[in-house]
């Protein structure tokens, strides 16, 4: 028992990720934690999207299953699992069966390198960002095979659209990413990094989020990435592969039940994955706002209490809504449930004030909060924009984003190396 406690304690004070430390046990625990956390995030996202979208559209969204529809995602999941599993007669059964797993695998594997904190990542590869881009683009393989294996027109068109779209936007996305990576090397030692943790660390060392570096270059790069990542995840306004009004459901038209839910899971975890790339590269990853400017123990304390306050606030919202529940006996269970949910949230909030928790949870909280901001953007886009047409989508990708990205890359390099360039120019003139 004592050895176990010591083991855990030794880990908690470690300054390496379990992967980097070669600690198989902790790595496994982390994989499980990330998997569970991601599943919960997808479930929460499902509910939040329906609720937020509903409120944007002057309706209430799910209200029946649980208080304010809180249990709706669970009901949905149950329904999907119990549904009849249909494989069309003409479908290529093996490929049809494998396709959703490729997509899910690609969407989940990228989380191996996502840094939730300086040591809170499954592993820290020195090619982390490349790994992420590479693996996340594997999902297009699953989508193409899904569309092809369905042996049906709409999925085929959806799959073609999707593959063309994802391949095109990866180029622009890559250029934006490269310009951010370039920024990591612009420090005193002139050493850049591709490691996800290294990139965030570079932002800390340079006292600046890359979003604001070389204003406005950083913001433009971020903008390109932010557009490309929406296209990459097939979400509105670039949701052509599953354009409901045109292709009924695109590449997953023929899928139902559990297999369909895998696509759903993959879509949302891909959204979280690309958002975490954006957060890592431009918005300072796990860093809290103003990590250098507002230093000192007072500020540390103030910022470290934010997670607790946030959860208390969420709990308070639940309690407020509990008070507003109808006073009819029929709603008794729902009211109690909502109060219980609020109590759990408040309890988590209180626990986050405990010093050992408070000191460790900050990184994960800020990272998740930033990702959540992106998730909100996704929902907002969906509520606001019409859908692009396919040729227009390609036009935006190749004729707008790609040239801008290229120019941006060169400009970033020039601005970053301006001292050296000037020195060279001076040398030439002196000669």
């Amino acid at each position: 028992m004592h050895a176990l406690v010591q083991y855990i304690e030794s880990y908690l004070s470690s300054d390496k990720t379990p992967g980097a430390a070669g600690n198989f046990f902790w790595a496994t625990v982390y994989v499980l934690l990330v998997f569970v956390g991601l599943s919960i995030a997808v479930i929460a996202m499902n509910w939040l999207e329906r609720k937020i979208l509903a409120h944007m559209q002057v309706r209430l969204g799910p209200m029946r299953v649980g208080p304010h529809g809180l249990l709706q995602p669970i009901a949905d999941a149950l329904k999907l699992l119990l549904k009849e599993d249909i494989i069309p007669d003409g479908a290529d059964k093996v490929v049809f069966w494998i396709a959703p797993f490729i997509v899910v695998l690609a969407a989940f594997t990228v989380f191996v390198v996502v840094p939730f904190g300086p040591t809170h990542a499954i592993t820290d590869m020195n090619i982390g960002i490349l790994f992420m881009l590479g693996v996340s683009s594997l999902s297009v393989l699953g989508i193409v095979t899904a569309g092809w294996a369905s042996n049906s027109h709409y999925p085929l068109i959806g799959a073609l659209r999707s593959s063309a779209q994802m391949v095109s936007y990866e180029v622009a996305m890559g250029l934006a990413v490269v310009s951010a990576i370039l920024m990591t090397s612009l420090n005193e030692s002139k050493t850049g990094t591709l490691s996800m943790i290294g990139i965030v660390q570079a932002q800390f060392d340079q006292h600046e989020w890359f979003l604001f570096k070389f204003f406005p270059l950083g913001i433009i790069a971020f903008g390109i990435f932010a557009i490309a990542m929406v296209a990459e995840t097939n979400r509105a306004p670039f949701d052509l592969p599953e354009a409901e009004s045109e292709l009924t459901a695109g590449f997953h038209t023929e899928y139902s039940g559990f297999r369909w839910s895998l696509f759903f899971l993959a879509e949302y975890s891909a959204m979280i994955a690309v958002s975490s790339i954006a957060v890592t590269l431009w918005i300072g990853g796990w860093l809290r706002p103003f990590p250098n400017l507002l230093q000192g123990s007072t500020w540390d304390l103030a910022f470290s209490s934010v997670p607790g306050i946030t959860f208390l606030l969420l709990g308070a919202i639940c309690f407020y809504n509990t008070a507003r529940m109808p006073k009819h006996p029929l709603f008794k269970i729902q009211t109690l449930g909502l109060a219980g949910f609020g109590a759990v949230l408040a309890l988590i909030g209180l626990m986050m004030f405990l010093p050992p928790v408070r000191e460790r949870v900050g990184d994960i909280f800020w990272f998740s909060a930033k990702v959540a901001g992106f998730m909100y953007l996704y929902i907002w886009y969906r509520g606001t924009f019409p859908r692009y047409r396919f040729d227009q989508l390609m036009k935006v990708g190749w004729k707008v984003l790609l040239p801008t990205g290229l120019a941006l890359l060169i400009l970033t390099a020039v601005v970053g190396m301006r001292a050296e360039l000037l020195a060279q120019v001076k040398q030439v003139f002196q000669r």
Partner: protein
Amino acid sequence: MTDPRSLSPLDLETPDKTFLDANELVINMGPQHPATHGVLRVILRLDGEKVLGLECVIGYLHRGVEKIAENRTYTMFNPYVDRMDYVAAVSNGLGYCEAVEKLLSVEAPPRAQYIRVILTELNRIASHQLWLGTHALDIGAITPLFYTFRDREEILKIFEKYCGARLTTHAFRIGGLQYEAYDGFESDVRNFVSFVKPKIDEYEELLTTNRIWLERTKGVGVISGKDAIALGVTGPVLRASGVKWDIRKAQPYANYKNFDFEIPTGENGDTYDRYIVRMMEMRQSLRIIEQAVAGIPEGPIMAKVPKVMKPPVGEVYHSIEAPKGELGYFIVSDGSTQPYRVRVRPPSFVNLQALDVMCRDQLVADVIAVIGTLDIVLGEVDR
């Protein structure tokens, strides 16, 4: 001008066995499809995503309305017309009642006509709101649908208060109205007008200058004025092509000559112009309603019409400007209590003909946009 009739028909007999190897793809869109506005079936011949041609298959909602008319008295048939264009039932009723009135040589009293105009114009707004919501939904903007339905509800409430029904209202009777306007009708309508004006601005805010909306609608589904006339297209679709043809002005009926309003027209005949024309039409309708409410005269609401209607032998064609275009009724009377023949000229049915012309060489996504912009109601197309 290319004669639209010279377009080559689709060769649907060619079997489509190896669609993965072929360049051309024959796709069956509908009758169960989220964006064909009911049970329209469109057979598309595609080259990649480009539309080489298409063919509409209709009749899935055929109920034989015209045949039913031959077995009903003139009064009994009146509620049936509401079921044709069910989102603009009041306009259907107005057209039918006026056609029979023309046959009987009676005229509804002025008070009835004013109330008819108010209700019909309210229905025009409701129909355009429904069109806007579904059209935007087809193009991928999901939010306007909920806004328009929220505001359309207010119109339906007025209908419900007036005659008890919301959708298939059967609001008018041959010779006038059955119901006197309820207490507070005028203030309800006035409140609605002031309520909906900023709401129309709200819809426009979401769409009119939206970059993606502009890209999706400008230059899409273009039809020239000449082509439109050749195909018999009427209504906002025709007016967006620059033809100033509105039956309310051209052949005024139901007191429309007393009202001051404009006919909005477009220039390019594309989807965007049709959108703008309809948006402006909603505002014009509000203008008409304001004038009509201000000027409702006192008096009877029913003309002297015999209990048993036996119109003299003869035939009559009467058309009105329904929200979707020219809605005409051709009624042949053999002197008995039942019409010998009723033929309806539904605007949706005729406008749907233009789909092929408008969609050639465009992309699949545009077909959806064009079906939406034609504003068809399958109940009216199939009757």
